Each structure stands twice: as C-alpha cells, then as structure tokens.
C-alpha cells in the first residue's frame, strides 16, 4: 500500500511537472501585437492579434481584431471593415464577426476622454460566423441593416443557416424586404425538399416553390390561395436514370442559367402574373446572393482574405448533362466565329460612307445593300440564339426539346427591289433557307450560319472590289484634274497666250498640231469607260507631260544652235587689220548638221506629233546636239572626209555617230 502510494505520488508529481513545463513553454512563446496590416492587398487597417512563432513563422493563435476605417475621397462618408474572432493554430475558430459599414458622420458630436465622438448614419453588412478548424460550423447569420444616429433602424435582409464541416445543412431562412426564402439542405449539403420563396407581386402574395429531391430539381410552381401554377422547365430532366450522365454542380452561374434557359413559363396557359421570367430570375438572383453572402461582401471574399482555404462549401444541385459531341463542339465554335465575322462584315458595310457614293455608280451595291440589310435584320435573333447556345449551361439541357422554343421570327425576301439611276430594278437573291423550330439544332444552325457567312463573304469580296474601284475612281478624279490642267497648259503654251519670250519658230511650226493632238487625246480619254480610264489615265498624263516638256526643249533649240555656232567658230585676232575675226571650223560637219541633219530632225518632230515618236524625235535632236558638241573638240578629219558631198540626213547621222 505504502509502496503504491509512493508510486502514485511520484506519478502525480511527474504529471504536474510536465503540465507545468507545457504551460511554461506556451507562456514563454505566446505573444500579442498591434500593428498595421493590409488585407487582400487593398484594405489598410490596424490589427491586434495573439500569436506564437514556430520556425520563425507567425502562427495566429488567440484573439484577432482588425479594423480599417477610411474616408471616401471628396465625400463625408467613411467606410470601415472589421473582423473580430479567434484563431487556433492559424485556423479560424469559434465565433467570428465580419462587419462592413458605410457611415456618414452627423453634425452632432460629443467629447469624452479627449476624444470627439460623432454619431453616424449609414448601412452595415454583418456576418456572424462560427468556425471549427477553419471550416464553417454551427449557426451563421448574415444581416444587412441601416442605422440612424448610431442606432440600428431597419433590417434589409437577414439570412440564417447552419453549417457542418463547411457544408450548408438543415434549414435556411432568408428575408429580403417582402421576399422570404425557406429551404433545406441534406447532411451532404445538397438542396432538398421544398424551397419556398414568398413574393409580393402586384399586391398579391405568392409562394414560389422549388422542389428538390436530393439536389434534383423536381418541380417548380407558384401557390396562391391554394391554387398551384406550375412553371414548365423544358429540357431540364427531373428523373435520374442510371444510363444518364448526372452531375453535382455548385452554386454558380451555370445552375441558375440552366433554370433560366429551361423556364418557358406557366403550364397550360395559366398565368397568375405576366412577369414570370422576371420573377423567377429575381428569385434566382436572390437565392444566389443569399447563399453567397455567407462568404462574399460584393466581390470581397470575406473569409478567404484571412486564410487560404475555403471555409464554406455552397449548396449543391444535381443536374443531368447532355455532353456535346466533338462535332457539336466544333460546330459551336464555328457558329460563334462565323457569326462574329458576319456581324463584322455587316457593320463595316453599313458604317462605310463610300457605299452611299458607290450606289450611284455601281448597280450591284444597291442589290448588296438590300441583301445585307436582311441579314442585319435577322442578326439580333441569331446573336440571341448564339448567346444562349454558347452558355456552359446549354450542355445541361435537352437541346432537342429546348430548340423548339427558339423560333426564328424572320423570313428572307428573295426578291430584291431597288432603284438605280432612276430605274426601278427587281432581282432575285438566293438566301439560305431558315430551319424551322422543329428542325433547329446545332448542326442546322451551323449550316445556316455557314451559308450566311459564305453569302456575306462573297458579297463582301465584291463590295471590297467595288470600294477599291471607288478609291481608284477617287484617285482618278485627282488625276483627271491634273489631266485637264495639263491639257490647258499645253493649249496656253503652244498658243503663246502669255506671249512667252521663249516662244520661237520651232514652237510655231508645230503649235497647231500639238494643240490638236492634245485636244484629241483628251477627247478620246473622256470617251473611255471608267474601267479603261484607269488604264489610260497614267499614259495620257505622261504623254501630256511629254508635250509640256517638249515646249521647254523647243525653247532651248535656239540656245543649242547658238552654242553649236559658238563651238564651231574660232575667233582669232588679226594683227594686220587689228580686229578679232571669227571663222567657221569643221565647216563640213557644221554645214552637214545645219543644212541637212537639223532640218530633217525638225521635219520628224513636226510630222510625228504623238506620244512616242514626238519625244523620240526630240531625244534624237538632243543626242545629235550632244554629238555635235563632242565633235567640235575632237579630231574629225576622217568624218569631214566622209561628209564630202553628203546630203542625205540619215547618211550624215550615221557618219557623225560612227
């Protein structure tokens, strides 16, 4: 006995000592600090928390308080973020309160402990939460309320829910003004049973019931005075079959989109109110916001800003999936892409101011406008349909059933009627045939969009060609202005309208012919069709430019002849008579040029007034002149010998250019 007592005493002493050591260890390592902190990289405030260090890491443990109060610039309003709760080894634990307030200080204030305290009015969003090991657990409440003079006045909405191990379970109640929601989650966090939403519509009370069986949407109806008004969800499967693909999907946009897509209104034409889609969509939004509000304040992730793991799993729904085939996936992509291209082409066409101008000249543009206008008319309907079918939710509906709800309320008029140059014209256009609602499918819709795309693209290709032509025509207009200016310049120059001192006998000899040629060329050009004008304008411009250049070249002939006279003249001083005397040198060459070659070239110039030969003749003159200048400074005895008695211009030219 004694021995046992002694042993028990020793064991007790050891336990006390160990406990004391553990307490001493924590006591010596636990710390508490108040400092500035930024949450979510945007909310600056002051934090006070308890923690300990483990391997140099801060481990939140114990009380945590955060406050951020900031004045909104250029207003009197103040925004505050507050967290208050506890951590346990870096995990959210126990009761937590998040509060966001938007306050406006009132004019009245009082002083206490050297602090001036203002009363405020405003609005508060508050989450009262419970956590266990960082996961939502226990009762939660979300409140949105207003307050006046620092006292709560109105509660805008309240939401109460239970969590277990992050999952929503059991009953959920929410109230937003006159609308209330009451629903249930299973232990697995799946919607179950009747979800009742009370509405006040047109001063009448309705209860909207959405019935779930273990997450599967079973029924949707409104109750009023014991009368049931069922909402038909077409394409949304209610019965789980083993061969079917069913999935749990989260509380996200996709699910409510599925409900919106399939909602085709009340059955049997019973309509207690008209705005059924509006009301059910409002319920969807309310439901979504209700559930999300446990974790979100607007876009601000309330709890994820404090820890890295998700504290809440939102309610789950079970829906049937109708997976796309690979072909359908490609067709869907093709529909979106080609429809966008069609829209782009149509926008470009109808925003292009040149089309209106082009319609005056190009008949086809009038027809195209009519055709494209019809495509533009149907485009909003097509876009709406594309908007629907490209939603992820579309894969969760029975498309064969649902497509019949989307009727294209349009028919192409294949008779195209327009007025062109005061003439009423009727033509036919082969539009793609629109699939009726019974045959509408992704494949048929793809065919329609594809045909539209092809038709519009072909039209666009021709339109682009026409626009290019129009641009060329615009360029042509500028060129034609230049052409007219050049023609007038030629007329003025060669008629010597300005009494130009450089106008000489050589101008005079060809003036009339040049003017007639220029006028005739211009007249010929004017008579050409536009398509040929494009080809002819530049050559005609070049031709006229040559004629203008020719005027300058002809003006230069006297100078050149004087120069030749000069270089073929030697002046020497005669000491006998005491005068300078000039004499012709290389007289045979000079005379051959003066008497035969030059006149022959000038005859060529006069007789060949056209765009090619005219300038060639003048070039010939220039070449001959240059050669004559060269020869004046060369030993030409052999040439002079050959020129003896030579009178033929061609032979002289050959000799000179040997």
């Amino acid at each position, binding site marked *: 006995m004694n021995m046992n007592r002694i042993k028990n005493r020793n064991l007790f002493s050891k336990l006390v000592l160990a406990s004391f050591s553990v307490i001493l260890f924590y006591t010596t390592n636990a710390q508490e600090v108040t400092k500035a902190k930024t949450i979510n990289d945007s909310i600056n405030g002051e934090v006070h928390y308890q923690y300990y260090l483990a391997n140099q890491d801060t481990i939140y443990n114990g009380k945590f308080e955060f406050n951020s109060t900031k004045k909104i610039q250029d207003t009197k309003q103040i925004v505050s973020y507050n967290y208050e709760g506890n951590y346990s080894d870096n995990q959210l634990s126990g009761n937590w309160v998040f509060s966001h307030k938007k306050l406006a200080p009132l004019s009245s204030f009082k002083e206490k402990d050297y602090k001036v305290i203002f009363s405020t009015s405003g609005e508060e969003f508050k989450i009262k939460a419970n956590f266990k090991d960082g996961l939502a657990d226990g009762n939660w409440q979300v409140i949105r309320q207003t307050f006046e003079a620092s006292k709560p006045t109105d509660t805008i909405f309240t939401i109460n829910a239970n969590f277990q191990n992050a999952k929503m379970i059991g009953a959920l109640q929410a109230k937003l003004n006159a609308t209330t929601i009451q629903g249930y989650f299973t232990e697995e966090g799946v919607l179950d049973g009747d979800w009742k939403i009370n509405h006040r519509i047109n001063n009448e009370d309705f209860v909207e019931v959405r019935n779930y069986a273990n997450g599967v949407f079973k029924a949707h109806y409104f109750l009023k005075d014991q009368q049931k008004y069922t909402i038909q969800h077409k394409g949304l499967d209610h019965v789980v079959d083993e061969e079917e693909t069913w999935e749990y999907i989260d509380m996200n946009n996709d699910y409510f989109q599925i409900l919106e897509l399939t909602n085709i209104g009340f059955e049997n034409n019973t309509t207690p109110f008209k705005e059924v889609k509006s009301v059910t969509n409002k319920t969807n939004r309310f439901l979504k916001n209700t559930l999300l509000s446990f974790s979100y304040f607007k876009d601000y992730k309330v709890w994820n800003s404090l820890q890295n793991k998700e504290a809440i799993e939102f309610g789950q729904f079970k829906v049937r999936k109708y997976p796309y085939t690979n072909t359908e996936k490609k067709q869907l992509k093709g529909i979106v892409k080609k429809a966008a291209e069609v829209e782009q082409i149509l926008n470009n066409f109808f925003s292009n101011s040149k089309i209106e101008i082009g319609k005056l000249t190009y008949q086809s543009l009038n027809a195209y406008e009519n055709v494209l206008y019809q495509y533009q008319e149907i485009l909003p309907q097509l876009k709406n349909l594309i908007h629907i079918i490209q939603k992820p939710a579309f894969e969760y509906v029975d498309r064969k059933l649902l497509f019949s709800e989307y009727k294209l309320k349009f028919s192409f008029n294949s008779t195209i009627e327009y007025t062109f140059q005061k003439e009423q014209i009727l033509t036919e256009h082969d539009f793609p045939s629109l699939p009726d609602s019974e045959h509408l499918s992704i494949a048929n819709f793809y065919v329609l969009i594809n045909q539209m795309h092809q038709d519009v693209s072909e039209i666009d290709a021709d339109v682009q060609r026409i626009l290019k032509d129009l641009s060329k025509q615009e360029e042509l207009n500028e060129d034609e202005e230049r052409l007219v200016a050049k023609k007038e310049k030629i007329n003025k120059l060669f008629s010597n309208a300005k009494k130009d001192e450089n106008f000489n006998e050589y101008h005079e000899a060809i003036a009339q012919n040049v003017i007639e040629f220029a006028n005739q060329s211009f007249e010929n050009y004017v008579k050409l069709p536009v398509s040929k004008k494009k080809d002819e304008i530049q050559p005609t411009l070049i031709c006229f430019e040559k004629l203008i250049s020719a005027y300058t070249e002809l003006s230069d002939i006297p100078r050149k002849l004087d120069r030749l006279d000069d270089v073929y003249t*030697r*002046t*020497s*001083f*005669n*000491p*006998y*008579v*005491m*005068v*300078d*005397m*000039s*004499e012709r040198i290389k007289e045979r060459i000079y005379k051959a040029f003066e008497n035969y070659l030059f006149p022959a070239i000038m005859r060529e110039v006069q007789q060949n007034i056209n765009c090619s030969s005219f300038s060639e003749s003048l070039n010939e003159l220039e070449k001959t002149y240059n050669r004559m200048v060269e020869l004046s400074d060369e030993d030409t005895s052999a040439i002079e010998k050959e020129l003896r008695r030579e009178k033929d211009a061609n032979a002289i030219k050959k000799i000179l250019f040997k």
Partner: protein
Amino acid sequence: MLTKFNFRVYAFLVLCIFAYVELASAQGIGQLESGMQKSDAEASVVREAQTLAWLGAYGTFRLSEKWYWHGELHYRRNETNKYLFLGEMAQIYNRHGIKYIPTKNFSATAGGVLRLDFNPNANEADKGFIVEPRIWHEYIWTMPFERFRIYHRLRFEHRWKRKFTKGSEYQFGNRWRYKFLMKIPLNKPKLEPGAFYFSPDVELIMQTGSTITDNPVEDLRIFPTFAYIANPRTTYSAGLMYTTGQTSDAGFIYRERWILRFNVYFNLDFRKFDDKIPETSFYD
C-alpha cells in the same frame, strides 16, 4: 550687208579719190610744162611720171600673247622704155621687226630694214646694186567705227643711204612718216573673212639729214586699195598708188610715180596649241 546706198557712197568715194589723183597728175604735168617754159627759178618742176610695180608679202607671226614678229618682203620693178611698170628690177626690200600689241587699238614695232637697190643700167662708174640698211620703228593707232576703221601710223626710219656711184659714201638720214588710212568693208558689216573692203590710204613721208637741204618732203603717197579678207590668216589687196615728192636733185623738182601694188598679208600663230586657247578673250 552691203546695202545699195552704202555701195553708192563707196563708189562715189573711190571716184572722188581717183579724180583727185588724176587732177593732181594733170596739175603736175602742167606745172612741169609751165616751169620749163618760164624757166622760173621759183617754179616747181615735175619730172615725167614713172610707173612701177611693187609685189609685197606681209607677215605677222604671233609669238606670244602680245608679241609678234613682223616681216615684209617687197619685190619692186621699174618701168623701162619698152615696158611700163614691170620693165626692170628695181629693189628687193626686207623689213623685219618685233611688234608689240598691248591693246586692240595700238601697236608698236621696231626692227631693221635691208633694202637692195638694183641698177640694171649701171656703167663702170656705178654699182649694179647697193644695200640700204635702216632701223625703223612705228606706232599704229586704230579708231574703230561701226562700219569702218581708221588707222594712224607713225613710222620712223633711220637709214644709211648712198648713191650707185662707186665710192660714194653712206649718208645717214631720217624719215618721218605719217599715214592715214581707212578700211571700209563693202560687202560685210565689218572686217571679217569674206569681206571685200576699200582702203583710202594717204601717207606723207618727210626726211631729214645732213644731205637734206631743200627737199624735206620725200614722198606723198595716195593709195586707194581694194582688198579681200580670205580668212583671219590671209588678206589680199591691190591698188594703184600715186606718189609725188621732192627729189634729191633740187627741192623744186618733184617726181611722180604710179605704182601698181599687189600685196598678200599672212597672219600666223606660232604659239603652241594650248596657248592659243584663250586667244578669243585675250583682249576682252
């Protein structure tokens, strides 16, 4: 271009000059006759006119920008009883000099003359030919007008002269010559290749020296010439020159000569080709 009016003016001018020459000639003959008849010591005596022919070649050879070599060669014939103008040898006359032409309107020349006088009829007391050396220098001014040019020439010759008589001494004398001439183009507006021109030419030759006592007027030459400028290098001229002057025999005895003159003028440039380049602008 030679207009009709201009041609008439030239023709009239030529006629006037010839008329003057003829008149002077007639006057001289008349005076000789009257002097002979009167035997008046104060009356002038004019010898019977002689006819001669001078063939001349004048060369002006350019040596540098402003320096020229001037050379003249005359072949002169005298009349005989049998032949007028060309009867016998009279003189060979060589004149050379260096000419300096600083401007287009002035030239100065200096050099020597070697004249060979021939005496085809020499007897024993006479020499067949004698040599007369001269030193000469001349200065020419020109006066350009729109349609003609006037030339003034001053020529000074310092000569050693002797007679054909054997043993006669050389006597030094000076000649003082002033010449006025015009060159008037007839078929061209100015003197240029292809131009025919008329040149009225009058020269007075005075002389001084120890032997010159009463005969200072050696010669008055009136020489209307027609010339043709073939090219800047060659000019041809021809004319009949009338001269008269006091003889060395006595101051009152005058001689008269009618001399046919044919001249050719050469102007050659002896400079290297490169030096000729600026020629045309040399005087500008």
